[in-house]
């Protein structure tokens, strides 16, 4: 690829990815609509066509002929489907999904500087499927919308040379024109002769239907022609009130508008945006975290100064802290990404599993616009997909079984997200056969994870958590989709690492619900500082229920450990010092007991003193410290002292 084109590569990759994501999503929606017999398939198919077409044009501009050729074949198949709804079946969708996946891989290869060829087997398969679905029509110009000037067999009419770039055009049709949509259509046709039409608003379909809201047309073409050439072409069209041209991302030529026309700043994308690599965001966040720590340190140093100097320093440090906090908040905002980035994979994943195991599933997603820290989001993708696959594979019954049970033959998985103060609550619920606590208990005992009496002592809800233990799986048959039991324990571990919790609820016969509670951000968290002997340790506030001053010797005992009444429960109390392997505590009498989340249920941790709550920038531990059970992160106090953050469940397990 020449140097010039390389400049556009990252933008091509990003836009191609968007088109491919929309293509994939559209295919799943299409299948759903066909199954539901809703008949609303035309707009979806048109959308698919536009996506394939855009991708074809973009790839051609970038001289990525392999991608362009595959996109073209996909476009042909979608076109064939546009004309006859009888061709819309699972097989056609499968082929198109395969094409989308292959295109995705090829775009990834292109981003690495490669020049990938389209897989010939897939091209042949697309051809064959298209042939089988085409209506026999004498009309040679099968693509009316964006056919460039004849001959009709050309893939792209003008050969887009190295200097091809995107020009955005806005046109206002004169008020006196009796058929503005036709005028708009003519504009589109004329400009299509100069380059590849990337998009138009209103769409060509809308124009053909006579719709042109506000008599305005906005479109973008990829062309090697000069702006002047485009202007000249537009000058030959009558009944145009105003024209505005812009090279996308480039200079703005003087507006040629005889009548008053207000051009939109960014033709089709409303807010002005910038693409930034995520590594840069991570760096910003790190740097800001360091700034926060450095500011706290400064404050500590200030405390050692003589009183006369203090007010000035304090004022300065306060201001500094305010600015840094502000900066931190802004950086965090930038890192906030909508959940939809992860949830939009889910319908497709569900569809693939459903097809493999012969079930029917609908996925409903709600609240995906909620924003969450990118770092958390990145970790969430795989766990969510795994739980979804589990739901489809093990939860949802076969259509026949469902009908027998009085349920609709199509199972339903709902993914709902909502915010609750500083947490995001994500629920994945299915209406399948539910999880059986008895079978989980039996599986845990059989696997040697629990003794029979311990298993029997577990309540039904707690027993469900057994599904998160490694190796426990009650699937009747282990399909290659899921069911080897390796998944849920990894999910639980991921959730724990993110500082969140996972709850499972189930009603046998009715369904199962997984509830994730996650913090909105990762890097800065509230911690409770406690003193144990000489050490200061931290506990994430998220995992702390409360604290109490207790005279340990006065507590009732159960199975050797003192128990503290907390609400309706009796919570066993452990000495944190002993758990950590520290020397025996010297203080007797009243101790502070922190009630925190343990491995299964609350536990009490007796400490020497509560030192208060504080905002901490958590840093990951490196080797060898990360190998120590029970330590999850480290932070540095204002006085420069490093404080380890505890992971209580793991500490108890060690």
């Amino acid at each position: 690829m020449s140097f010039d084109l390389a400049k556009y590569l990252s933008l091509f990759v990003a836009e191609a990815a968007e088109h491919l994501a929309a293509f994939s999503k559209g295919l799943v929606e299409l299948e759903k609509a066909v199954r539901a017999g809703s008949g609303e398939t035309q707009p979806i198919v048109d959308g698919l066509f536009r996506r394939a077409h855009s991708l074809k044009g973009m790839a051609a501009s970038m001289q990525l002929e392999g991608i362009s050729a595959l996109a073209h074949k996909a476009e042909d198949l979608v076109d064939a489907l546009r004309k006859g709804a009888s061709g819309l079946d699972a097989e056609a969708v499968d082929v198109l999904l395969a094409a989308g996946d292959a295109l995705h891989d090829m775009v990834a290869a292109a981003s690495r500087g490669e020049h990938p060829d389209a897989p010939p087997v897939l091209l042949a398969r697309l051809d064959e499927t298209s042939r089988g679905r085409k209506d026999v029509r004498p009309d040679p110009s099968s693509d009316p919308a964006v056919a460039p000037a004849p001959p009709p067999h050309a893939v792209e009419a003008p050969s887009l040379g190295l200097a091809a770039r995107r020009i955005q055009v806005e046109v206002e049709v004169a008020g006196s024109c009796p058929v503005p949509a036709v005028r708009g259509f003519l504009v589109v046709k004329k400009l299509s002769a100069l380059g590849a039409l990337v998009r138009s608003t209103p769409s060509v379909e809308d124009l053909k239907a006579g719709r042109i809201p506000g008599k305005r047309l906005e479109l973008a073409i990829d062309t090697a022609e000069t702006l002047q050439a485009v202007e000249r072409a537009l000058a030959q069209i009558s009944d145009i009130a105003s024209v505005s041209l812009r090279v996308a991302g480039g200079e703005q030529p003087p507006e040629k508008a005889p009548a008053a026309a207000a051009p939109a700043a960014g033709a089709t994308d409303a807010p002005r945006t910038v693409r930034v690599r995520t590594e840069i965001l991570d760096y910003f966040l790190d740097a800001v975290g360091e700034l926060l720590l450095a500011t706290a340190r400064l404050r500590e140093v200030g405390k050692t100064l003589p009183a006369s100097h203090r007010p000035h320093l304090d004022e300065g440090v306060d201001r500094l802290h305010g600015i840094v906090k502000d900066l931190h908040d802004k950086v965090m905002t930038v890192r906030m990404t909508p959940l939809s980035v992860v949830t939009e994979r889910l319908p497709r994943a569900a569809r693939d599993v459903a097809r493999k195991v012969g079930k029917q599933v609908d996925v409903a997603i709600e609240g995906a616009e909620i924003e969450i820290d990118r770092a958390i989001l990145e970790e969430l993708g795989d766990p969510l997909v795994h739980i979804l696959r589990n739901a489809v594979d093990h939860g949802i019954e076969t259509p026949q079984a469902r009908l027998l049970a009085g349920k609709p033959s199509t199972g339903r998985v709902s993914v709902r997200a909502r915010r609750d103060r500083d947490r995001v609550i994500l629920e994945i619920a299915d209406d399948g056969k539910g999880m059986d606590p008895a079978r989980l208990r039996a599986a845990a005992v059989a696997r040697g994870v629990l003794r029979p009496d311990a298993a029997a002592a577990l309540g039904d809800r707690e027993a469900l958590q057994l599904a998160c233990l490694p190796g426990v799986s009650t699937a009747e048959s282990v399909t290659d989709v899921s069911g080897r039991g390796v998944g849920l324990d990894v999910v639980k571990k991921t959730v724990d690492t993110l500082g969140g919790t996972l709850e499972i609820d189930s009603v046998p016969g009715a369904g199962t619900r997984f509830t994730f509670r996650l913090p909105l951000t990762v890097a800065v968290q509230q911690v409770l500082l406690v003193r144990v002997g000489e050490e200061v340790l931290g506990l994430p506030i998220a995992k702390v229920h409360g604290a109490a001053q207790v005279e340990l010797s006065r507590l009732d005992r159960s199975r050797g450990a003192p128990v503290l009444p907390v609400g309706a429960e009796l919570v066993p109390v452990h000495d944190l010092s002993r758990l950590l392997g520290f020397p025996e505590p010297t203080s007797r009498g009243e101790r502070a007991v922190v009630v925190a989340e343990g491995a299964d249920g609350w536990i009490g941790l007796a400490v020497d003193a509560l030192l208060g709550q504080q905002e901490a920038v958590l840093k990951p531990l490196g080797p060898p410290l990360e190998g120590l059970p029970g330590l999850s992160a480290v932070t540095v106090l204002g006085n420069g002292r490093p404080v380890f953050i505890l992971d209580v469940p793991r500490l108890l397990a060690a």
Partner: protein
Amino acid sequence: MPKKVLIVDDAIFMRNMIKDIFSGSGFEVVGEAANGLEAVEKYKELRPDLTTMDIVMPFKSGIEATREIIKHDAKAVIVMCSALGQESLVMEAIEAGASDFIVKPFKSEDVLSVVRKVLGDA
């Protein structure tokens, strides 16, 4: 040097009306055709600078004639004359290669302005 015009319409009065619009305004009407078949023949014979084309005609429609003329001469300038309510046909004609269109009833200055623009003389 006046531009040569070919007028295609199945109604004589329409052809006369259009002829009057073009005469003496820097255009020379060099031929007339009453249907799509004649239109294609006359075009090949006369090679006009501009053709005005009615849409609905016997034997061969204006759309078909446009398509054939464009196949024969990609640079042919053809302006469709349509009635209101024929928008989809006009768009079909545009797809077939028509350069522009005018809607009946037309005013002579509108016709001339469209034609001049499309010929690049605006």
